């Protein structure tokens, strides 16, 4: 990053802070008390911090996956659906095997199948985009709605609880199938490990492999990449598949570690949040961990706001959105000011 771009980013973050402060003041709260409340909400007790970790794991997974599609120059808006579909497929795997296989094996299978489910769903979005010429917005968002419907159908239909079908989801799985957690908390070390592994894999693949290099080339210039001999379409579809796979695993972990059953809207906006993380991170995989951590802290910390200050917890979303918006706009300003405007000959 050149010095100039650095200053623009700094300025944008400063402006973002100004805006957020203004919003807080508008509702009649004081920024210091907000910060205190959020800090205690995230770091106050071990249980709370564990919840931060529990949010971090799927966020890391999804953001890592999204980095593949971003590198390829794509916006994978269908990530929510890929998480949910992974959750559905892993639930299916559990239901099919929970009575016949040992718990450890069921868990492994569930995670695997979740990943495969997400991969397929991601591929579907990719195929629709590349071959079907369907607007990538529509295919991405559309598939999100389709998965919503599918999971609702399953929860209220064939997979409903005994007696009463309800919005609280399917019958919870026996405790033997629950992933172990840190003490009494909600945080699962296995989920965290998998997530960190995903970040590491992303870093290594994007920086150190031919695949990553080719992906970068395709994202920067599709035509020139093709002329240089890169099978562009294959690269694009691979990016969708990998992102879907990571998201599917995140979905499986939501089922196994967090909710212990399939619930409606299991992705709970994590996919979109991961998109925001990825937009801030850009192509620098090293920033995934700190940014995702920051966003998780915001999410959990803001849960304290309704309790302490009678404020809505969506302040987290306000902060996250404002930061990304200002960073994007600053990028635009620095790019526009850099290019001298001349008419071009043609």
């Amino acid at each position, binding site marked *: 990053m050149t010095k100039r771009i650095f200053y623009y980013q700094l300025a944008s973050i400063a402006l973002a802070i100004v805006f957020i402060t203004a919003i807080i003041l508008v*509702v009649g709260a004081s920024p210091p008390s907000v910060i205190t409340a959020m800090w205690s909400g995230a770091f106050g007790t071990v249980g709370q911090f564990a919840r931060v970790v529990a949010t971090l794991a799927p966020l890391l997974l999804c953001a890592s996956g999204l980095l593949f599609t971003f590198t390829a120059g794509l916006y994978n808006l269908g990530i929510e659906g890929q998480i949910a579909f992974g959750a559905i497929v892993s639930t299916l795997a559990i239901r099919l095997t929970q009575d016949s296989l040992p718990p450890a094996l069921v868990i492994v299978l569930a995670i695997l199948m979740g990943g495969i489910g997400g991969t397929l769903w991601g591929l579907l979005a990719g195929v629709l985009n590349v071959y079907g010429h369907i607007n990538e917005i529509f295919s991405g968002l559309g598939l999100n709605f389709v998965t919503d419907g599918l999971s*609702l159908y399953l929860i209220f239909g064939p997979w409903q609880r005994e007696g009463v079908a309800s919005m609280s989801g399917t019958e919870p799985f026996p405790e033997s199938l629950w992933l172990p957690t840190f003490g009494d908390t909600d945080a699962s070390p296995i989920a965290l490990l998998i997530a960190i592994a995903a970040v590491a894999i992303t870093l290594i693949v994007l920086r150190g492999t031919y695949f990553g290099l080719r992906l970068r080339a395709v994202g920067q210039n599709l035509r020139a990449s093709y002329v240089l001999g890169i099978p562009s379409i294959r690269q694009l579809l691979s990016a969708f598949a990998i992102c879907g796979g990571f998201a599917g695993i995140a979905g499986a972990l939501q089922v196994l570690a967090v909710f212990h059953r399939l619930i409606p809207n299991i992705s709970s906006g994590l996919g979109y949040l991961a998109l925001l993380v990825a937009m801030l991170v850009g192509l620098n995989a090293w920033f995934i961990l700190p940014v995702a951590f920051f966003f998780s802290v915001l999410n959990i910390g803001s849960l304290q706001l309704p309790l302490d200050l009678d404020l809505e917890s969506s302040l987290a979303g306000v902060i996250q959105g404002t930061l990304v918006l200002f960073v994007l706009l600053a990028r635009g300003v620095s790019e526009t000011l850099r290019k001298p405007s001349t008419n071009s000959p043609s």
Partner: protein
Amino acid sequence: MDIAQITPILATAIATSTPLVFACLGETIAERAGVINLSAEGTILLGAMTSFAIAKTLEGSGTVPSLLAGFAGAAVVGAAIALIVALGTLTLKQSQVAIGFVLALLGASLSSFLGNSFVRIPGPTVPSFKIPGLQNLPLLGNLLFQSDLLVYLSYAAIALVWVYFYRTRAGLMLRAIGEQPNAAFARGTNVVKMRYIYTLIGGAMMGIAGAAFSLDFKAGWSHMHTAGYGWIALAIVIFGGWNPLRVALSCYLFGILQSLASVAQSSIPAIPSQVFNVAPFMLMILLLVLTSSEWVERVLKLLPSPLDRTASELIRSTPPAALGKVFEQD
């Protein structure tokens, strides 16, 4: 089930689709000029919250002034968000998808946070009002004219947008800008300025859509009050082929499908009602996949000459050629 039973259901369906109609017409205008405003979800939510907050605060001054202020406020909010979209994409040349998406999430969060004190409070609503003469029309009277002012305004909006697009010079230029901005530029238009204007108009209409929810069809305000409608609006614009009439009809179709959900629930208990809420959207994707395929193109080409143009207009799903693309106006 006879006509007498279906009609009120359909009438309700059409009426409750009104907010969507406003949002979709607004987005159609912006997209026809070449700009995607992906922030619809956030804009509608923020519009809904703002209008309710304003109307509630001014409740003491009378229903009509407070409602008007509410709608005006929603329009301003919608236009403001659209201004950011336009600035970020037309002047700063960032991706329309990125800017719009962030604003969608940000708008949603802001609406929740700022609207906290207005949750679950009753507020002013648009009164119902049957049009004297028209309400007695045989079939259409019961169906279309027994609602309220907002619904009638939406009918007017559909007609206005249609006339503007297809019968006025300015509307023709609007369509031209979205297809070939450099040719439009060659013909003397300030393309960037017009795109700003149309994006703002589209945003204002989305804000009004939000107000239509919180001040009429889903009166009040709550956390994530109109969730999902923004995304659906974007999809309907595509599904409706960027043609105001088809888009409006698609909105009504969507509303009808939603209404059928409650009816069908009793007839087909096996399928949960929540599925029906999502079903319209799934159906639309399916239809879109089918109609976008090469197959349909080939069949259309076989039709005789004047017929093929009408048929392709009916089914066409080709976006304006310059939609989403950056235009360099030197």
